[in-house]
């Protein structure tokens, strides 16, 4: 496709912002020297420069107003073992040692000399297909490189936008599934408008031989990949990469720009940030800007640039709104915003009333005292386990997960949990009354909220017996009487 570009090259002496520059050009600034190029192909380059590459979630310095250059990109391919979630190892194939691979930042007209280096310890040949390349295979054809070798090819970036790159060596799906993808940003002449915070987020789906959470080194499962039945759907290569210490940060009043990609290989992302509305979305990473967007679709092998101003403090959760992927497969990240509250925009909880359609009157919420005891109490340990498992599946599983593994940095594990096993009455109390504030479980700090559970004493006894007798816990059997004792202490 041919696109006619209009490019303006300003005198270097001027030091105005892009917007001012544009408006000057549009309205008044006819005395300035300007050069127009019929196409991006004709933009001249001067000087060489080594490209700054960054690992996620960081991005290189904005290009600003720099002129087109010969940009040297050196990308090393590494096959290495990492942790996809607590206790689960996976052999990643990476561009630059991270999943997603190093972020490349260029501008229209740059001439890129790309060095693809395949580490001698690697077993496999690889190549790179950059969607920003105009040419056969997006560079794949010229970059097919054996272990211990380096291939060099060059291309001129013609179209601005945010593009995916990935490995395209057979079996292609497997190379992508193992983490071989990343983003290359091509900024327009003059650069993107400057914002306060920029981050790099990329979704990917992973297929392992064992089910989600199954421990040990998990090999790639090709049948699941062909069936597109992912065990993990994650941001930045692993569960919890963007939570806890890895959370993105911003201050109230700042504008945040996320470069969001989706490596796939199989799934399309419904990218959403809980509690925010995107002020601007560069749809599919291109020129089209949509405003006031709740959720944006990011195809596999595609990207989007989203921007929003954060007005209130709090934790905003990044999710794939195909929501089981977020809460059960790992597609969950956090943006922590610090600063002054703004009650005008968000009040927080004001009141907790009971709503009775049939009559007036405000009452308090029912406590567990009013929860009806089961008509059929468990008669044996086996029944306690059976009933307990059922309750676990209805009540606890969403946060603490199927194998009690929890979600790193968000919800503490129940499996082999030192905190749980240390004090049974305390655990009963938490189920009865909820828990807020920082706790340390198996050496990890957690700071979230567990709500009070509306369960009967017998139900609590059953579910806790189930938890204590599963996943390597201390095999305590909790009786309804013990639950009642804890309850009456309060």
């Amino acid at each position: 496709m041919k696109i006619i570009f209009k490019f303006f090259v300003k005198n270097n002496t001027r030091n105005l912002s892009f917007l001012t520059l544009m408006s000057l050009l549009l309205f008044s600034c006819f005395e300035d020297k300007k050069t127009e190029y019929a196409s991006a192909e004709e933009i001249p380059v001067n000087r060489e420069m080594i490209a700054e590459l960054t690992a996620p979630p960081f991005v290189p310095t904005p290009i600003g107003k720099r002129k087109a250059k010969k940009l040297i990109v050196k990308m090393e391919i590494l096959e290495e073992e990492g942790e996809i979630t607590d206790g689960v190892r996976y052999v990643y194939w990476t561009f630059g040692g991270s999943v997603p691979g190093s972020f490349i930042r260029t501008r229209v007209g740059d001439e890129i000399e790309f060095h693809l280096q395949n580490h001698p310890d690697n077993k496999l040949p690889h190549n790179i297909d950059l969607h920003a390349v105009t040419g056969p295979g997006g560079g794949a054809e010229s970059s097919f490189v054996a272990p211990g070798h380096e291939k060099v090819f060059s291309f001129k970036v013609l179209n601005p936008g945010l593009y995916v790159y990935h490995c395209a060596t057979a079996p292609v799906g497997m190379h992508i599934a193992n983490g071989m993808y990343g983003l290359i940003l091509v900024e327009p002449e003059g650069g993107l408008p400057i914002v306060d915070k920029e981050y790099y987020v990329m979704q990917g789906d992973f297929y392992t031989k064992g089910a989600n959470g199954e421990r040990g080194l998990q090999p790639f499962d090709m049948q699941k990949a062909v069936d597109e039945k992912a065990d993990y759907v994650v941001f930045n290569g692993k569960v919890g990469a963007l939570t806890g210490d890895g959370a993105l940060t911003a201050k109230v009043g700042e504008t945040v720009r996320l470069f969001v990609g989706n490596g796939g290989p199989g799934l399309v992302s419904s990218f959403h940030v809980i509690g925010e509305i995107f002020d601007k979305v560069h749809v599919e990473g291109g020129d089209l800007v949509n405003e006031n967007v709740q959720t944006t679709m990011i195809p596999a092998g595609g990207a989007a640039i989203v921007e929003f101003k954060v007005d209130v403090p709090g934790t905003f959760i990044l999710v794939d709104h195909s929501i089981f992927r977020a809460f059960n497969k790992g597609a969950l990240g956090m943006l922590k915003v610090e600063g002054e509250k703004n009650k005008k925009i968000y009040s927080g909880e004001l009141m907790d009333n009971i709503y009775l359609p049939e009559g007036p009157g405000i009452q308090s919420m029912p406590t567990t005292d009013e929860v009806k005891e089961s008509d059929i109490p468990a008669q044996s340990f086996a029944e306690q386990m059976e009933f307990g498992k059922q309750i676990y599946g209805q009540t606890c599983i969403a946060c603490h997960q199927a194998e009690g593994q929890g979600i790193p940095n968000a919800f503490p594990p129940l499996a082999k949990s030192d905190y749980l096993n240390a004090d049974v009455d305390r655990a009963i109390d938490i189920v009865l009354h909820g828990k807020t504030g920082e706790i340390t479980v198996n050496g990890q700090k957690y700071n979230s909220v567990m709500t009070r559970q509306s369960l009967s004493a017998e139900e609590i006894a059953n579910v806790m017996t189930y938890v204590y007798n599963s996943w390597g816990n201390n095999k305590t059997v909790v009786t309804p009487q013990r639950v009642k004792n804890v309850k009456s202490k309060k």
Partner: protein
Amino acid sequence: MCTKTFRLTLVFIAMQMFSYGQSEGMVHIKGARYIPLYGRDSTVVEVKDFKLDAYPVTNADYKEFVKKYPKWQKSKVKGLFADANYLRNWKSDLEYKDTENPKSPVTYVSWFAAKAYCECQGKRLPTMDEWEYAAMADENTKDARIKKSYNEQILAWYEASRSNENEIGQNPKNYWGVYDLHGLVWEWTSDFNSVLLSGESRKDNDKDNNLFCGSAALGATDLMNYAAFMRYAFRGSIKANYAIKNLGFRCAKDIDNTQ
């Protein structure tokens, strides 16, 4: 009478010994027709009976070779026949580094070097079709490619690191009595570049198409055989003078019809 028979027997035994000596460490592989993942021409390939080394060539074997044939020593080899990585794990012309195990497969050898080694033993490199044929067997079947366990084992190797440092013969032998076709290193074949690089007489693809994106799927006979895909992709990425850490070889031999 008796002595004559005895003499004949002796001669017979001597001949037997002689012929065994010729193919020491080799196993007989009975040929057949089969369909490889990629073929050069039509889909069915015929492999004739041949002999194949039971083990890959080791560091110790290769040391003997370079002692005898100095032109293949690290400092003497011509760049045309082996790139700068040739015997990179050797500290001198006749000694590998102390960290190397004599019983590990020799690697960092070029195709030219591997070919010369085999020829000096009166052997040759196996063809890709022969290699693939021998390698599709598991411990008890000739063609185990449809077995899930077979593919999983091979894939597990592709994910294991530093397997080139292991000793030969640690993996179970296959149906034919061959060890380590999978699990240690990649191996050179005489026509390693015939599928992806020359692409001659392949109907659906020209040579470029094989190297990227969806085209790898065209012309393949079994899309689930990811392990084989990786081997063919690997072969397609190398050149005859490359010397690579995870690439070794073993030799093959025709069956002498006069025997």
